[in-house]
């Protein structure tokens, strides 16, 4: 690094800048220690004052497909009819980080219901599954 001032500002930038890279693809962890999915997209709203504020985290295959191609998201929306699209209000996030800690327990969120169903109805019969 040639310029010490620049080194400081670079360090500061990396530590202090909070951006959507810190939220997208992060694991969601509930207060009872269950991992219920990853953030596929973020929804935000422009209010009447022009402030653009995050409102919810979006999970599901449709939102994930939208990251690859917007037409793919439209197609999946038509096929899945938004059944697997889940949203969690941003106010539910207690702590941001590599893992987003949520305030509620796993059963309070619609995300991860299919995983839970598979665990309770199928995997529990497998010896050694620990469920």
């Amino acid at each position: 690094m040639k310029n010490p001032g620049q080194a400081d500002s670079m360090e500061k930038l990396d530590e202090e800048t909070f951006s959507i890279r810190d939220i997208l693809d992060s694991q969601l962890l509930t207060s009872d220690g269950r991992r219920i999915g990853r953030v596929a997209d973020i929804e935000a709203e422009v209010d009447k004052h022009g402030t653009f504020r995050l409102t919810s985290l979006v999970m599901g295959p449709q939102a994930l497909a939208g990251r690859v191609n917007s037409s793919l998201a439209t197609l999946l929306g038509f096929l899945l009819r938004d059944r697997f699209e889940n949203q969690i209000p941003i106010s539910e996030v207690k702590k941001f980080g590599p893992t987003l800690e949520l305030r509620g327990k796993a059963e309070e969120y619609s995300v991860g219901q299919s995983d839970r169903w598979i665990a309770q109805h199928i995997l529990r019969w497998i010896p050694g599954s620990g469920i």
Partner: protein
Amino acid sequence: MKQGKQRLENILDKQIITADGKQVGHVFDIQLSKDGKNRVIALMYGRQSLLFRLHIYKAAAIAFDLQLPKTIPWDAVDAIDRTHVRLKPGYQP
């Protein structure tokens, strides 16, 4: 900026243009406030921002003496359409 909901993934990778149509760069990351209000405060563009989004900016900056990522304040954004983020008249990054 028009009121309403937006998915942030729809803003990423869009071309930023000034009011008179000059291309500025692509949105590679979106900076948020750290005051707990979760506001969008700036769009990050340029190569350094791409490296920042990929979490390799710091290492690359040490190796290649890079500039800081470029940002455009949210207040300077006029509209977002299918392919572009248009800046307000008079704002020149």
